[in-house]
């Protein structure tokens, strides 16, 4: 009887594990989006923008240098990655002395500085296996600030909905970059907080954490 139960349990666990793996790997939703990236001018103080790539990108988009090629290098002065342990940006310009290129990672947001405006057409698909590690202050993050790329079809449409999805107490603030001023729009959800704001799938957002959370964004 014990053997029977053991065998049954093994079979059920095996089936559940295999089913779980398949469920995590498969995604049948894709996207083609057109994200306007303004250069210095009326819509942008310096031509700086945040950028959010889909989790399964075009196979040719692997490194920062590929982004420059895709946008046209004459249109871009650099791609920037946020370094959490030091709260600073590393820049790749694709020019002489412009620093090393870096790999693009699913769930990671980037800054991009435009020399000429481009309506950037980006294609890709979802990957429900991606888990966003949102770090609180500690060895992995100096201040608990994470620059995050959400899935294009995330159910969170506003900063407040994103905070609720992660767990309100775990999050200190959600911050969005404002191209017109190079400033940050901040929402804390606490007393005295500036107003809530809408999230744009083209943009990346800073999420400042009180507690480290492994977050799987809910999606449509």
């Amino acid at each position, binding site marked *: 009887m014990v053997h029977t139960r053991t065998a049954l349990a093994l079979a059920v666990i095996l089936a559940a594990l295999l089913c779980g793996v398949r469920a995590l790997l498969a995604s049948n939703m894709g996207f083609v*989006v057109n994200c306007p990236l303004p250069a210095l001018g009326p819509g942008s103080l310096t031509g700086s923008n945040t950028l959010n790539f889909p989790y399964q990108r075009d196979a040719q988009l692997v490194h920062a240098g590929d982004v420059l090629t895709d946008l046209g290098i004459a249109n871009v002065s650099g791609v920037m990655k946020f370094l959490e342990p030091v709260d600073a940006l590393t820049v790749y310009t694709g020019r002489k002395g412009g620093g090393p290129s870096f790999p693009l990672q699913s769930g990671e947001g980037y800054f991009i500085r435009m020399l000429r405006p481009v309506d950037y057409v980006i294609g890709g698909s979802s990957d429900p296996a991606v888990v966003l590690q949102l770090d609180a202050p500690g060895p992995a993050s100096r201040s608990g600030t994470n620059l995050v790329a959400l899935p294009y079809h995330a159910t969170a449409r506003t900063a407040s909905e994103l905070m609720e999805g992660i767990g309100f107490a775990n999050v200190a603030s959600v911050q969005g970059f404002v191209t017109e001023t190079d400033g940050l729009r901040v929402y804390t959800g606490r007393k005295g907080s500036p107003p809530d704001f809408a999230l744009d799938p083209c943009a990346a957002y800073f999420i400042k954490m009180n507690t480290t959370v492994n977050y799987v964004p809910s999606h449509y």
Partner: protein
Amino acid sequence: MSLRALRASLLPLAFSSLASLTLAEGPRLQIQEQGLGPGGVQDLLWTADPENPGYAAFDVVRGDLNALRAGSGDFVAALTGCLAEDVTASPLPALPLPAPGQKFFFLVRAQATADVCGAGSWNEAFGVAPSSQPVDRGPGIAAGNTCPCP
């Protein structure tokens, strides 16, 4: 019944349940640019699960991502058209390109047999715990789909 015999009888059951679940989850979709560069043309490709040779035909729909988000997952309002009905192979080349600010989504569904309406699923992980897809896509797409087969 011996333990060995029991294992032998249970494992095929486990694998057959796996096969039926993966069929319901649908194929894997990719969007690929035809060469890097500004204004690149995008192709839609999908990969059927090789463990499920029963896939015979595929349907593809397109929708407006901004409308989907604004409508809290209302696929009836967000759906804008049927791109393919009962096609047997990937890819769909040269997808329509969105205007600045526009965002399109694409969904592909596998059908075990061509022209059997509703045999496949538009869902990815709905009802498969732990799921990050809280909304069942099926009813909305069935109501709003312009393909002959909802």
